[in-house]
């Protein structure tokens, strides 16, 4: 799946922005890259919403500012969990991977625990960001290598 920058959104407080950034990474992750959250979450996790698959209508705007229109439906999986200590996590991910949705929700819940953020950063988020970055760069380089610059030496109408 191509990675891309998070689209512009209404300004939120820094805490929400950080949470969004974490969830954007989780959305682009492979399911195995999120595996460490299971051990970190520990026992006693309540599935507020057992992972379920459904459709969402994806809406678009031409140029980012035109009239909103319905682009089409996309399959998403959503999940909501609560940790034993009471933190809740919510996640929607594209596709039909229930395990990934649950792990993303666990990540969201664990992110709420400030003391755990360095661990999450080191074990999951930093390697994930590095991989996505490398993939993005490799793709950009591949595209750049095929670029042809055209320029005119002599105009024919002289």
């Amino acid at each position: 799946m191509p990675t891309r920058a998070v689209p512009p959104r209404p300004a939120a407080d820094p805490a929400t922005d950080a949470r969004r950034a974490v969830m954007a990474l989780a959305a682009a992750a492979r399911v195995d890259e999120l595996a460490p959250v299971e051990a970190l979450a520990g026992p006693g996790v309540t599935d507020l919403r057992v992972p379920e698959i459904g459709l969402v209508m994806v809406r678009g705007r031409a140029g980012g500012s035109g009239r909103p229109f319905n682009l089409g439906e996309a399959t998403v999986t959503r999940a909501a969990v609560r940790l034993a200590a009471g933190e809740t996590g919510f996640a929607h991910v594209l596709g039909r991977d229930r395990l990934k949705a649950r792990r993303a929700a666990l990540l969201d819940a664990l992110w709420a625990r400030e003391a755990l953020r360095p661990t999450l950063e080191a074990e999951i988020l930093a390697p994930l960001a590095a991989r996505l970055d490398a993939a993005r760069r490799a793709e950009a380089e591949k595209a750049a290598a095929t670029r042809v610059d055209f320029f005119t030496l002599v105009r024919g109408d002289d």
Partner: protein
Amino acid sequence: MPAPLAATLRPGFADPVFDAQAAFRAAMSALAEPGTIRSLAGLDHAPAPLGSIAAALILALADYETPLWRDALLATPEIDAWLRFHTGAPFSDAPDAAAFALVSGAEALGDLDRFSHGSDLAPEASTTVILTVAGFGADTGGVAFRLAGPGIDGTRDVTIAGAPVDLAERRAADLALYPRGLDLLLAGPNAVLGLPRTTRIERI
């Protein structure tokens, strides 16, 4: 959703698809064969005082286009948050604008005329009332009723504990309104019993 309530929010169905289908099937069968007792695995962890059967029914039936009315006892912040999270249904303060009404017991049922009976053109737009009762069966010491009408071969006798004692009289007026009318789902401790608008009820 409000952050403080997330810490107390209860889970919904353990298996959303099959559990909701089982609850829907029980409700449908209960209305198709009025007076039969359809046992159902309820939601034991539903927020009190919402009963486990009523909780399973409303989770299976309600969605974002079915306004919900609930009586004062059931309109707690915890139940509201739970219903909003799991069903997405809007709340209605007017009983006659609701597609589903959650009623905690006979004393909270009030006048049946305050619920929507639909119109002659759209009789299905009526309110479906989910009334919590204490139990079914002769050993519950409840009130005995004799039912007749579509879905019943001859008559069917039921004993319902916790139903309004004047249920027969209150439902009799509705029969003349057909096709308009109210459908009632009685939620017992572990089963559901349907009393659709077509059922004639007689106290015995």
